[in-house]
């Protein structure tokens, strides 16, 4: 039920109005007789409408009270007056009343005036709210809404135009500067293309981005929505669109991209670091394996084949080479091939000339450092299944010891090992280790042969000494049969010879000590001749008893 405040200083009239209003179904919240009371009551009871007599008792006129009420409470006021005074009506018009009733008025008239006032007030309020909303929207709109006529002439630019560009709507519409002039020269081509299409293609819609230069010369990023608006006949009517300043977003995106790039870089760097560390560990591990296998070979290997197999086993365990070829020069030329499967294949006959050597061996002969070859060593053809899963390249290095070339070692690489610098260094280290082992094996062999020869010579020498003692015994025996001076001289001379032979014998026994030491501590077994007739294994000190007896 709508409520009405009646302001009338004549009690009788006020009562009449109240009854009439209630007759129409309105609720009368009260009646006031002065402007001051009216304002207070309006504030307290907030009626939907105020019926106000212009002439009131008290200081305040009805017009003043009405103004106050409208301003403070937004309540529509209908004036009641007995006079149609031009001055008063003008004043009333100025404050924009929702109607006025000339006394005396009939009930019908009052009702219609009140209803119209209600309607108007509702409409006014809706409009006001709408306006307010629009104003608020435009005020807070971060973008610009614009319209162009079909000849591309600007109609309006509403919104944050000046906030974005630094130019007013008037400046832009008057082409001073035009929007197009703000567009960054580098982007103007694509901008023109878009506008051209919006101007010619019915219903064309597109969203695109470009840069403008604002009043301060700052570059700003704009996102534009451009539309060709058509009527029901599909006829283009105008062009409209919106502009948004996306500089912040672009900058944020740029920062994000930058951050991503930095992160990417960090991840890549970290990956590289890890790979490098991995590589270093891998190489170190393999170097360790090579060294320990070479040490093992020095201790256990008896033949050069053993050495190769020993090293291969460890290399396979450490993810190393797929095959090794070891060519050894010397008394017999041999190429031994060991694959990571542990099999020995690809034996190569003694070549007639250096030129007929396999290229991987031949090339390494002429070089101080390891050689990387693009092609696989042809010896690999002899090894079934080897050419699968290996690089086509081969590493080769000469085995040099004290300026003498002992042989060549070649390696077939698996795909995950590239013949780069650290790999070559590792391979050279392996070549050095193999050289050491071969050198050692050969030195032992040479030493053994030399000792053997010395031993045989000494044995022969000892046998000769023995052979001398028999005739000496005969001479001493015969001379002893006579007891004359000459016989004594013969005996004396014979004993001198015996002493010389003894001295030679002692030399032999000393060398026997050496041999005994070698046999016991170095594992060198020396063959001695005539074991069944000669006590060759004699301990050096044990025969002294017998000799002393003979020396008498």
């Amino acid at each position, binding site marked *: 039920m709508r409520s009405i405040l009646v302001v009338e200083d004549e009690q009788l009239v006020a009562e009449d109005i109240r009854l009439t209003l209630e007759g129409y179904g309105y609720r009368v919240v009260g009646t006031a007789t002065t402007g001051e009371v009216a304002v207070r009551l309006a504030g307290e009871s907030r009626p939907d409408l105020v019926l106000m007599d212009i002439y009131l008792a008290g200081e305040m006129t009805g017009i003043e009270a009405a103004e106050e009420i409208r301003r403070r409470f937004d309540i529509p006021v209908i004036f009641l007056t007995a006079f149609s005074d031009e001055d008063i009506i003008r004043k009333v018009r100025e404050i924009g009343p929702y109607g006025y009733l000339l006394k005396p008025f009939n009930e019908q008239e009052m009702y219609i005036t009140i209803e119209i006032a209600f309607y108007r007030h509702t409409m006014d309020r809706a409009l006001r709210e709408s306006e307010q909303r629009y104003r608020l929207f435009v005020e807070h709109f971060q973008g610009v809404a614009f319209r162009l006529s079909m000849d591309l002439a600007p109609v309006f630019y509403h919104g944050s135009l000046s906030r974005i560009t630094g130019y007013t709507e008037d400046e832009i519409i008057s082409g001073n500067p035009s929007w197009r002039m703000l567009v960054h020269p580098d982007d103007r081509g694509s901008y023109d293309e878009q506008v051209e299409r919006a101007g010619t293609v019915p219903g064309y819609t597109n969203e695109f981005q470009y840069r403008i230069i604002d009043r301060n010369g700052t570059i700003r990023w704009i996102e534009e929505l451009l539309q060709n608006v058509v009527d029901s006949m599909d006829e283009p009517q105008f062009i409209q669109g919106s502009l948004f300043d996306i500089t912040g977003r672009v900058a944020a995106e740029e920062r994000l991209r930058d951050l991503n790039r930095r992160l990417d870089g960090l991840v890549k760097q970290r990956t590289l670091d890890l790979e490098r560390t991995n590589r270093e560990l891998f190489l170190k591990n393999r170097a360790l394996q090579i060294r320990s296998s070479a040490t093992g070979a020095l201790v256990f290997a008896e033949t050069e084949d053993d050495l190769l197999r020993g090293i291969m086993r460890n290399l396979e365990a450490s993810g190393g080479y797929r095959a090794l070829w070891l060519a050894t020069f010397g008394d017999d030329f041999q190429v031994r091939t060991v694959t990571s499967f542990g099999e020995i294949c690809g034996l190569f006959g003694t070549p007639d000339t250096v030129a007929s050597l396999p290229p991987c061996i031949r090339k390494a002969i002429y070089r101080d450092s390891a050689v990387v070859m693009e092609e696989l060593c042809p010896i690999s053809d002899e090894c079934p299944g080897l050419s699968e899963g290996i690089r086509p390249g081969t590493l080769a290095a000469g085995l040099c010891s004290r300026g003498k070339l002992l042989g060549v070692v070649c390696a077939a690489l698996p795909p995950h090992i590239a013949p780069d610098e650290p790999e070559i260094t590792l391979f050279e280290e392996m070549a050095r280790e193999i050289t050491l082992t071969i050198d050692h094996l050969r030195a032992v062999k040479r030493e053994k042969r030399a000792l053997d020869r010395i031993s045989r010579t000494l044995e022969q020498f000892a046998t000769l000494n023995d052979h001398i003692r028999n005739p000496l*015994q005969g001479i*001493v025996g015969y001379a*002893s049969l006579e007891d004359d001076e000459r016989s004594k001289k013969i*005996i004396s001379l014979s004993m001198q010879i015996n002493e010389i032979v003894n001295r030679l014998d002692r030399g032999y026994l000393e060398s026997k000590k050496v041999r005994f030491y070698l046999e016991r501590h170095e594992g060198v077994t020396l063959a001695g001749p005539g074991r069944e*007739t*000669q*006590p060759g294994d004699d301990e050096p000190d044990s025969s002294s008893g017998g*000799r002393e007896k003979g*020396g*008498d």
Partner: protein
Amino acid sequence: METIAIVDDDPYIVEVFCLTFERAGYSVLGFTDPVEALEAIPTKRVSLLILDLMMSPITGLQFLDERRKDRALSEIPVLILSAWDLSPEERKEYADDIAGIIRKPVMPRTLVEMAGVFLKKE
């Protein structure tokens, strides 16, 4: 009269010691072939055997191996007279078979004295 047997493949040595021991008043049997000696000695009454080591067709040690098989022979004491000494292993192995070891060359007088010592022992 005591009989001494000398086994050496050198005929000069056999001859000179035969003469030496005969002069010293012994009966001497000389052999240049050890195989022949193995057959002959058991049939004689021999008190001492002087044995060389480096001989053919059998060595002195092989002679000792054969000696063990013959009861009569194994009772005769053996003096080794050799240019070579025995190894400790051989000395140990033949300790029961050998009465003494003398290195060549030895003064005949010394040999006769040593033989005398062994014969008195027996």
